[in-house]
């Protein structure tokens, strides 16, 4: 498969994934904050096609529902109530992209049935719904931080590589400063300085933005490396000979050579910043309750009892792997297409 083909397929996979996340309200059976306190840490609900009498149904169904005694994940026996899974149902209200109100959901079961396809967390909230809604915050954060880091890094790296001399030296020293300093306290300070009634998810996006803004150093070094060799290319020297201004050369001749690298960096940094969220949650700077994010879903796994007893809490982490694989596939394909100088 050619790199171009691989790129197309990876982009397609990514597009589907992002589509699921964007229309989380439609694909998720429940609202992300709906607590079902009777079903805390419930195992994934089993979908049955064959009932207790041995009849086959085309439409899947679940057994049990509202009380704790019902074994959602267990086997069927005579007498347990069954609830059919319906498609395109009217569920809890939600807003598409936060603006358009809607109530249509892809699937659901009638009350008091429950369908928790990948189980519930400690409050009894459906993990699948939280995973889909959580993607909205996490993907936004990851993309935002990656773009900020790469844009700023590109500008600074290009300037450093192009002008060389003391500009280069001082910028690279500042880059080292940025790489080494404990910016954590800045994050603490920013968080603490904000008033209490700003919505949690806005604060979180701000923090991730700061994180991305502070992360320009690594892309800058890479861009500098490319620019150092790019500016010696024949056509650049020729353009200079023709009297082109620095801005013109940078914009039309040098920077285009870095596009491959920049795109690759973005593709690599998005998963990096999504995972950085896990560290932020660990440090107490994560997105607040009850808004879900992938980082908060993953940080639940830090606890031993979860690993030891509730295996379905791993599933959100596993669901992320194909997403990251898609991003890395894009990065690889881009690298092959553009053949940039590594390091």
């Amino acid at each position: 498969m050619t790199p171009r083909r691989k790129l197309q397929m990876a982009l397609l996979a990514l597009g589907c994934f992002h589509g699921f996340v964007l229309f989380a309200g439609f694909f998720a059976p429940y609202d992300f904050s709906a607590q079902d306190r009777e079903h805390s840490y419930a195992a994934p609900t089993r979908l049955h096609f064959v009932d207790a009498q041995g009849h086959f149904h085309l439409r899947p169904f679940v057994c049990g529902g509202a009380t704790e005694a019902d074994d959602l994940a267990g086997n069927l026996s005579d007498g347990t109530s069954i609830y059919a899974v319906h498609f395109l149902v009217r569920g809890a209200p939600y807003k598409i992209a936060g603006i358009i109100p809607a109530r249509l959901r892809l699937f659901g079961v009638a009350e008091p049935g429950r369908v928790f396809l990948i189980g519930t967390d400690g409050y009894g909230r459906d993990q699948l719904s939280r995973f889909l809604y959580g993607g909205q915050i996490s993907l936004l954060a990851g993309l935002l931080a990656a773009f900020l880091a790469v844009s700023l890094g590109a500008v600074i790296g290009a300037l450093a590589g192009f002008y060389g001399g003391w500009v280069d030296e001082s910028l690279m020293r500042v880059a080292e400063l940025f790489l080494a300093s404990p910016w954590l306290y800045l994050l603490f300070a920013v968080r603490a300085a904000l008033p209490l009634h700003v919505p949690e998810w806005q604060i979180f996006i701000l923090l991730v933005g700061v994180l991305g803004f502070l992360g320009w150093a690594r892309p800058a070094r890479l861009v500098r490396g490319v620019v150092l060799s790019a500016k010696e290319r024949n056509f650049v020297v020729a353009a200079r000979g023709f009297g082109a201004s620095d801005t013109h050369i940078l914009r039309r001749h040098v920077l285009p050579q870095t596009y491959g690298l920049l795109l690759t960096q973005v593709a690599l940094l998005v998963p990096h910043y999504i995972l950085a969220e896990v560290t932020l949650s660990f440090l107490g700077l994560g997105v607040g309750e009850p808004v879900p994010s992938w980082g908060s879903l993953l940080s639940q796994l830090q606890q031993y009892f979860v690993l030891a007893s509730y295996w379905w809490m791993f599933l959100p982490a596993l669901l992320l792997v194909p997403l990251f694989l898609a991003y890395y596939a894009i990065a690889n394909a881009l690298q092959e297409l553009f053949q940039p100088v590594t390091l």
Partner: protein
Amino acid sequence: MGIIRFRRSFGVAVAAAAFLAAFLVLSLDAAGPEVEWMVTDNPTGHTGGRLAVALRSEPKTLNPVLAEDETSREVINCLTADLIHINRGSQKIEPALAKSWSISRDGRQYTLQLRRGVKFSDGQPFDADDVIFSFQVYLDEKVDSPQRDLLVVGGKPIVVEKMDAYTVRFQLAQPYAAAERLFDSVAMLPRHLLESAYQKNKFSDTWNISTAAAQYAGLGPFRLKEYVPGQRIALERNPYYWKQDHKGVRLPYADEIDFLFVPSEDAQVIRFQAGDTDILSRFSADNFSVLQTQQSARGYQVRDLGPGLEYNFLFFNLNEVSAKDLPEVARKQAWFQDVKFRQAVSAAIDREGIIRLVYGGRATPLWGHVTPGNKLWGDAQIPHPQKSLDHAKELLKSAGFSWKQDGSLADSHGSPVEFSILVSSSNTQRTKMATIIQEDLAGLGMKVHVAALEFGAVVSRLTKTHDYEAAIMGLASGDADPTPEMNVWLSSGETHLWHPKQARPATPWEAEIDGLMQQQLITLDYPKRKRLYDKVQEIIAQNLPIICLASPNILVAAKNRVGNFQPAILDSYTLWNVEQIYLQ
């Protein structure tokens, strides 16, 4: 030839006997007075063996005067002893280094008789001079001991006098009900090792973690053997310990204790299961279920001791905030200051849900701050109403609140009721409680945000800027007696969290509590004190400056081979009777 040989060997024998006699006489002399043992009544065990315990972090210091954090105190408790000790099992006082004492008629003088013949772990004798020196250090303002404030009664530090080599007298400025409990955890220091540093004003540098073991001496069951930075601290048996069991065997039973530093609770649970440690102290309910299933297979036992003394509560900002600096908070205080609002919030909270979801069922719901774990001071009269949204709605209606079309709650001016709850993000239990309360109050139409900030930011807002609306905190009293917690209930107190450091009581009920607390401080008769403190609890339950939520149960575990394991709900939960613990 034979006779000479006989004479020679006879001479040798005589010389040896004389030498031995002299040695015995001399050593008896050096021993000083015979040891006045403290005899314990625990089941006897056999000596020998090594105990391994995990600590969450490294001890910050080994100096009992300066130690403030739990980990340091855990280690120091094994190394030092006090004059009068609170038995963690019974929650009552018992003699320790002081074998008996008498109280003057006016309740202001305490004369203590010290045990004779007691030696420090380096062999040096202990007497009244060490007691005088120890209290001098604890009370010295330049040393800044965190325990100093507890030894200040009626505004004046207690005064110590030496009556003779084994008698000391303490003078208090006013009669003080819990006086005997003052002495608990005030460790007696060896004058012979610390006096010179103290004279040179270098006391704060002594007995830190880089001190050599030979420089350290205490009266506890163990003494310092070795400290490996970052990994463990090893204690060995104190050969001069002054307690013995009722069969005359000198305590402690164990030869050695190793404290391992294991930074995360999960790692502690794992290492306990793997057999690296013998005792696991205070873990979460979730880990309890994991450990419980493997009890018999792996040869240990988990114990749920019931509620401790910790109480978690929700409270509102009742400070006097200026509308200029904090307009939002000032506006919302109109709601917070209405007692019916607070009562409605309390009625809407699903305490059972909190117990189940936050603590896995291993906690006790609270309607007052004295938990059922406190055997002596709980007030049985306080009502324990179940969650009732109807009752809450009635209260809100009578307070002038109403509901809009969409179900949201509005006050008498029509503004929607919306506020934030501040919690420390590092405390997962309180964050979870806040989330549950958020859902509960949504049932009343209130819109609640959970603001989880990092601990330093929370402290800053609560104590300095007062820029918060509601918050969830927990306090854990170190002792069952109400007196150490005075600063929470006195309106002038610094930890009177909802409105600290008042110049004059802001409300009549706070004034009443002030009076009652001051009175119970000097009432020596326990039934009278209990009545006073019951009244305090009733006033608090009526006015709800704090809405109590739950108290977590104390969960511990120990290997089956650990004998005399008698965990208690006061710290140190598992090692308070460390000298009686033996290994089978």
